[in-house]
């Protein structure tokens, strides 16, 4: 291949190759702009004054960063509570999911047991069912046990993560059988094998699954929106949607400041972990 390529290159081909490479590069930069710009626009607007934010033609930057936009949003409601609700709900879901999904995935990957296929079928079906189909019954269920005024309706329905069980099962399956056999010969118990051998091997998919779950539940709007009807149990997403429907709604700099507050925790985690998140996919190899 190499040899053939070297033999056939003419000056014209070389020139065309340069043009093609330059075009390729420009297209890639264009793609970066398209996918990052709206996000930067959101941040830039959150630091503008009101006249700046509605100026036409719009300016890309602010003259002086208006940090008070954030203060105004934060004080426009009980944002401390909304933030606390978001944090409590998301962290509890993650903890619960890890406790529940890891053992299940492990069992599905490692043991053959009667009814196992049927039970795994339940996992697969649940993976396919959108929450938009279950919310009515779940709402009624929580209303029957009068728990609607607590955070539980936002947490318990996500106790088991079907997608996570599916992903983790795949990576547990990839652990070589010999490794487990040799551990068994060393008289290691099942629990020991699970924590000492299997879990470290599945670490990168566990990180990816956890991160996706964190992002998904932190950002979720639909579920808390239909599950909550009092302010003190609402998370940030619902609060920010309300901000937009309120009298501040056409003050874009405030609405965008609210959205920046919402995305900030995820952005921080993403900056540190983005390589891990993406590689979690690559090396766990979902199949």
């Amino acid at each position, binding site marked *: 291949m190499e040899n053939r390529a070297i033999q056939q290159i003419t000056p014209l081909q070389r020139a065309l190759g340069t043009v093609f490479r330059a075009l390729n590069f420009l297209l890639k930069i264009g793609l970066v702009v398209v996918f990052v710009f709206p996000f930067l626009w959101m941040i830039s607007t959150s630091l503008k004054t009101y006249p700046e934010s509605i100026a036409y033609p719009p300016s890309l930057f602010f003259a002086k960063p208006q940090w008070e936009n954030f203060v105004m949003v934060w004080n426009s409601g009980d944002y401390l509570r909304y933030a606390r609700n978001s944090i409590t709900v998301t962290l509890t879901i993650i903890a619960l999911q890890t406790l529940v999904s890891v053992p299940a995935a492990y069992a599905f990957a490692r*043991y053959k047991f009667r009814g196992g296929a049927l039970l795994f079928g*339940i996992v697969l*079906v649940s993976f*396919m069912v*959108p929450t*938009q189909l279950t919310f009515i*019954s779940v709402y009624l269920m929580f209303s029957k046990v009068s728990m609607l005024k607590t955070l539980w309706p936002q947490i*318990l329905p996500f106790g088991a993560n079907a997608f996570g069980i599916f992903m983790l099962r795949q990576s547990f399956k990839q652990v070589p059988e010999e490794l487990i056999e040799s551990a068994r010969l060393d008289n*290691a118990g099942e629990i020991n094998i699970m924590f000492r051998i299997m879990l470290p091997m599945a670490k990168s998919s566990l990180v990816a699954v956890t991160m996706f779950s964190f992002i998904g539940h932190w950002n979720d709007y639909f579920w808390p929106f239909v599950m909550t009807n009092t302010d003190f149990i609402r998370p940030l997403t619902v609060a920010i949607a309300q901000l937009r429907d309120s009298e501040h709604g056409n003050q874009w700099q405030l609405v965008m400041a609210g959205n920046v507050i919402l995305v900030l925790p*995820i952005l921080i985690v993403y900056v540190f972990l983005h390589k891990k998140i993406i590689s979690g996919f690559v090396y766990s190899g979902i199949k």
Partner: protein
Amino acid sequence: MQDTGKLGRKVLPYALVLPAILFLLIFTIYPLLDMVYMSFTDWKLVQPAKNFVGLHNYRYLFGRSDFWNALGNTFYYSVLTVISQFCAATLFAVWLRKNTRINSLVRTALFTPHIVALLSVAMVWSWLMNEDKGLLNMLLNLLGLPGLRWLNSAETAMTSLVIVSWWKSVGYYTVIIFSALQTIPTEIYEAADLDNAGRFSRFFRITFPMISPQAFLCLITMTIGSFKVFETIRVMTGGGPGKATYVLVYYIYMTAFQGQFKVCLACAAGVVLLFIVGLLTALYFMLLSRKVHYQ
């Protein structure tokens, strides 16, 4: 643990899956069955009595033009989203396949919208798409083109929503397909090079068959994801203009929790959606078992 003996070994797997199965049974399977049951009653949130009415709700729904409209909109939205996302994600993944610095930058950029809440994305884009003061129309004008009406006209509103969800999710699927590409052994391509295979035949004969399991997983996730569309509609159009962007999920929500709280009707619409999801999933799995090439 090693002393638990035979019985322990037999019980252990059940003990490990029990919590997960309980959660799924209570919060996914039971609500589905409950939804099917309620769809055969006349129950409303504001009245305590539940009477069995057979297929009445379904007959009512299929006789209503707004339900057919929601069904049609869902279909349009899903087909357009799934096809555009799938083609673009595959194209991007192949294009950005080599591990160079610029490619890794582009992949990260593509993935960025996935970490932002769909709610925020909807707010930013509803502003970018603003007819009078939006950035998109300004760009079009700069290029000497007339501005579009985006969300304000029944003809363009649905397509505008498709653009937003495409932008939000295409990077996620690109990364999945990219990760699938990494698992293809390079020897296969070397063999193809010796056979003088062209780019296209290389893609359709080698690359695509090798990544088909992940590609099918993407298709299923995309399809279900497209049925779930809610945030963009609630924030950007509210189902309008007119009823041009009313989709099934929005219809279910509005029927159950707004106006007359006709939960039974919402449940019947939910059963229709469940039926469609089930049918498509079964179809994908049939294709998957026939076409997919496992290593």
